[in-house]
Each structure stands twice: as structure tokens, then as C-alpha cells.
């Protein structure tokens, strides 16, 4: 299994498979932060300490394995091309911090890309499990199994009072960040999101758009995650997040039904106009693409558009980002060229859908 394999096989399982409640929840992620007891945190550690940590992880991979999750590949940041790193960031497999600011960093990936273990990022170890749909308890269980495996070979920094010690005190205790990625066009169209976000913040959870900058959430895609990591158990943290996510799901569903009742034809018009733009445009900016993709996905979920795969939103939101587009083009692209490439890629992907339908007929 090579780097090419990871990058060419562009679509990860969380993007292509359908999970529970996948009409609204795109993916679920659990991240656990851990540190070796005997080394300084990446804030201050020496180059030698960083190398020792990577060597220990390599040794661990050679001598043991977690059969359940299949073989893992270790990729070192300093051995990767800028474009390759960017693609891994766009697939949410590594953080921008690991790609840009961690020359001594590395990542362990499983073949289906559901599990990635970042090494020498902000903490020595960051276990990440990324599952399609709403699967908080499955993802937590997988993360715990990996943690148990690592812990049987590595002495992690742990304090009876403070729990797992992390480089930033925002993560201390459980070291857990549980997050759920949601598509919420109904709450945006009915202008409820501005009211909902502060209410969720009151509960110690964070809501943010994951694409785009500032308060704008491209593609109406939001990430809800826990802020508190200390004083609550991992299970309670996930349960509290689950409570809020379930509420959001039912609010989004009723917003969609309300829209169907009050503005059925307007909504249908909007969905098919967006489909028209995606099918026919020759130049498209990421912002417009995201808006149209969100409309089309809503159209699929509400039954206006039939016989089109749901995962088209998840997939194309990722595949039309600059790193992937350049990978697809096989080289550097200027912003204007990207917009042309983006339009071409979307048209091609949609053509695959209509050919699939013809094939079935």
C-alpha cells in the first residue's frame, strides 16, 4: 500500500458510505489527545525527542497490530509533497497544523481512512475515528480500542486529578473532542440558525461552519462539538452531544416539512435551478458550487430529485477543493483555472450518475 494508493483512491469511507441519519448527519468524529510521559510536549520538544516518538510508533507497528482495523501505513510530513499534504487536509485526515507547522509530524492511516493517528501535532498522539453518518458510540468504542492498544505499549502522561495531560489545557482530562458534521439547509432557509447557535453554546458545545471563513458556513454544513473535556466522562460528553444533535435533526426535519408546505414550488424551483447550474456551468467558484451542491442534496433528501446518490454533496464538497482539483489536473492551477476545472469535474461526476441510471434501465 503506497502513498499513491491513499491519494488516488480519493474517496474515503466516510464520504462514500451511508450511515445512520445520513439525510442530515454527514459524519461523526472522535478525537483523543494523548502524550508520552517521558518526552516534552511538541510545544518545546527537541528534534531528537520527536524522532524518538516516531521511531517508537514505527517499532510498535512492526511488532504488534490491531487486526480489527487492518494494516496501517505511516506517512511522514517531511517526506510528503505540499499537494499531497493538502489533499489529506481536505479529506480531514490530518489537521492544517500538522501539514503546515509540524515538520517532525507523521500520520498513521488505515486503508479505509476511518482511522488516522496524528503524531507530533499539538500533542504527541491524536487518535481520530471518522465514521459516516451519526455513529457517536461506535466511533468512541473504536477510539477507545486504539487507545487501549497504544496504552498497553506506551506510558501516557496521566494525572489522578487532571486526567490525561495535554499540551493545551482546553483538552486536558479526557482529551476527547467529539464532533458531528451536519447538513442544515432547512434551518438556514427558515432563518433559525442564528437563534439556535447561541443556545447550543450555552450548553458548552461549539457550532461552526467547516467550509469557508468567518461566520459563513459554505454548503450549509456545520460541525457541532464538545468544548468541555474535564470533569465529565467520555460517555457523558458523547451523550450530551447526542442529545443536542438529535434535537437539531428533528428541528431540521420539521423545517424541511414546513418549507414543503409553505413554499413547495419555490423550493423545487431552487433545487432544479441549482442542478441546472451544476450540470451546465463551465466556470464555477467554490462558493456557488457549495450553495448549489447543498440545494441538490436537499432536493435528493426531500424526493424532488430521484435516482441520484446522496453522497454527491459530501464527495464533491471535498473533491472540488483546491488541493484535489490540482491533484486531478496533475499540477498547479491558478484560481481562475481552478474554477474551470471545478465546473468540469462536477459535470463529469453528474454524468456518471445519469449513465448509471441509463445502465439500470
Amino acid at each position: 500500500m503506497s502513498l499513491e494508493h491513499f491519494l488516488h483512491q480519493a474517496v474515503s469511507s466516510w464520504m462514500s458510505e451511508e450511515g445512520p441519519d445520513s439525510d442530515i448527519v454527514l459524519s461523526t468524529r472522535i478525537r483523543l489527545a494523548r502524550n508520552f510521559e517521558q518526552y516534552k510536549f511538541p510545544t518545546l520538544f527537541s528534534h531528537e525527542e520527536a524522532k524518538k516518538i516516531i521511531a517508537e510508533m514505527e517499532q510498535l507497528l512492526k511488532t504488534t497490530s490491531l487486526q480489527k482495523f487492518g494494516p496501517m501505513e505511516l506517512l511522514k510530513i517531511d517526506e510528503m509533497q505540499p499537494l499531497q499534504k493538502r489533499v489529506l487536509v481536505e479529506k480531514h485526515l490530518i489537521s492544517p497544523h500538522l501539514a503546515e507547522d509540524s515538520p517532525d509530524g507523521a500520520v498513521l492511516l488505515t486503508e479505509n481512512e476511518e482511522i488516522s493517528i496524528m503524531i507530533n501535532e499539538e500533542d504527541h498522539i491524536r487518535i481520530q475515528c471518522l465514521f459516516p453518518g451519526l455513529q457517536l458510540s461506535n466511533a468512541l468504542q473504536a477510539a477507545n480500542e486504539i487507545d487501549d492498544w497504544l496504552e498497553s505499549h506506551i506510558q501516557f502522561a496521566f494525572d489522578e486529578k487532571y486526567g490525561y495531560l495535554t499540551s493545551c489545557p482546553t483538552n486536558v482530562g479526557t482529551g476527547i473532542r467529539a464532533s458531528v458534521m451536519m447538513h442544515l439547509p432547512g434551518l438556514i432557509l427558515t432563518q433559525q440558525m442564528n437563534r439556535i447557535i447561541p443556545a447550543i453554546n450555552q450548553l458548552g458545545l461549539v457550532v461552526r461552519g467547516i467550509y469557508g471563513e468567518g461566520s459563513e458556513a459554505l454548503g450549509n454544513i456545520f460541525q457541532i462539538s464538545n468544548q468541555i473535556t474535564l470533569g465529565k466522562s467520555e460517555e457523558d460528553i458523547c451523550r450530551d452531544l447526542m442529545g443536542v444533535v438529535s434535537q437539531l435533526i428533528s428541528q431540521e426535519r420539521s423545517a424541511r416539512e414546513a418549507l414543503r408546505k409553505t413554499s413547495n414550488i419555490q423550493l423545487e424551483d431552487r433545487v432544479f435551478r441549482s442542478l441546472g447550474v451544476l450540470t451546465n456551468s463551465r466556470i464555477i467558484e467554490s462558493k456557488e458550487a457549495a450553495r448549489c451542491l447543498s440545494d441538490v442534496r436537499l432536493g435528493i433528501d426531500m424526493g424532488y430529485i430521484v435516482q441520484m446518490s446522496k453522497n454527491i454533496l459530501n464527495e464533491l464538497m471535498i473533491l472540488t477543493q483546491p488541493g484535489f482539483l490540482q491533484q486531478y489536473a496533475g499540477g498547479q492551477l491558478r484560481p481562475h483555472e481552478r474554477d474551470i476545472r471545478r465546473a468540469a469535474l462536477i459535470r463529469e461526476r453528474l454524468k456518471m450518475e445519469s449513465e448509471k441510471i441509463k445502465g439500470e434501465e
Partner: protein
Amino acid sequence: MICQECNQRPAALHFTKIVNGEKTEVNLCEVCAQEKSEMFMFSGQSGFNFNNLLAGLLKIDPSFQKPSQSPFQQEEVLHCGHCSMTFPQFLKLGKFGCAHCYETFKDQLQPVLRRLHGGNFSHNGKIPKRIGGDLHLRKQIDELKVSLQECIQHEEFEKAAKIRDEIRSMERKLAGNVEGGK
């Protein structure tokens, strides 16, 4: 007490900050404290925004600074014996240098942790199996020691000898665990 930021509302949050090695009280109202933490709440990358939060909460006010610094001032600055990080350095980076920093800065850390974690300041989640096992073993040894004392008091020496041997073997096991862990 009035909030030092807006000089209008009553202060609801009280912190101690260290400026040039000197403790200073900080008093903020809910509104001003909330404003300072907002940026941090909406963000993704915790480290960077944690800086903003800290910088906001513990903003170094020039009026708190001493007019003239003694050349021995630096020696008074608390620092971690393992990685030499100082508290002002931590505030600047928003990150600790090593696991020992938590112990070194525990007094300053308490209000920060409470603020960050909804009033919580002690761990209530997963415990590594290795440490969990040791805790269990230590507890058993403590219990055996109590019954050893009781046996001696009641002059049950034969029973006491048995218990003593048991304690010794458990202590060897504990030492073995610690060594095995390293």
C-alpha cells in the same frame, strides 16, 4: 465591585493574574468576560484562540507594572523544573511545555480550568489500565496493613506473619509493575 473593563456593571468573575511575578486581582462582569471568550468559542483551532482568551482574561495592564524592575525579579518567576517554562511564557503560547507544568502551575491553573471546563477542575473519565491496576493494588496493601496492625495488637503473631508475607509479595508486584511500565 465594579468591572474593570467597562467600569459600569458589577464584576462577577474574579481572577488572579501574575504580572512580572506579582499577583494581581482581575475583576470582570459576565458581559465583558463573555465577549473575551466568544472568539475562542467559535473557533476551530484551540491553541491559537486559547491565546486570545488568556490574553483577554489576563490582559497585562501597564498600570500594574512596577515602575522600576529589580535585577533579581527574574528569579522570582515560577518556572517548570522539567522544561523551564514560565507562567508568562505559557500565557503567551497558550500551551504547556511538558506534563510536569500541570503540577508546577497548579495554583494559577485552577481558575483557568474552571473557566474552560464549565466549572470543572478534576478528571472524571477514563483511567489507563496500568494506573488503574496499581491503584487497586495499593488499596489492597493499605487494607492488609490495617489488619496486620490489628493482629499484632491481639497478639495473633502467626496470622500476622502470613499477612506480612502477603504484603511483601504485593509490594514486589507493585514495584514490578512500575519497572515493567518503564
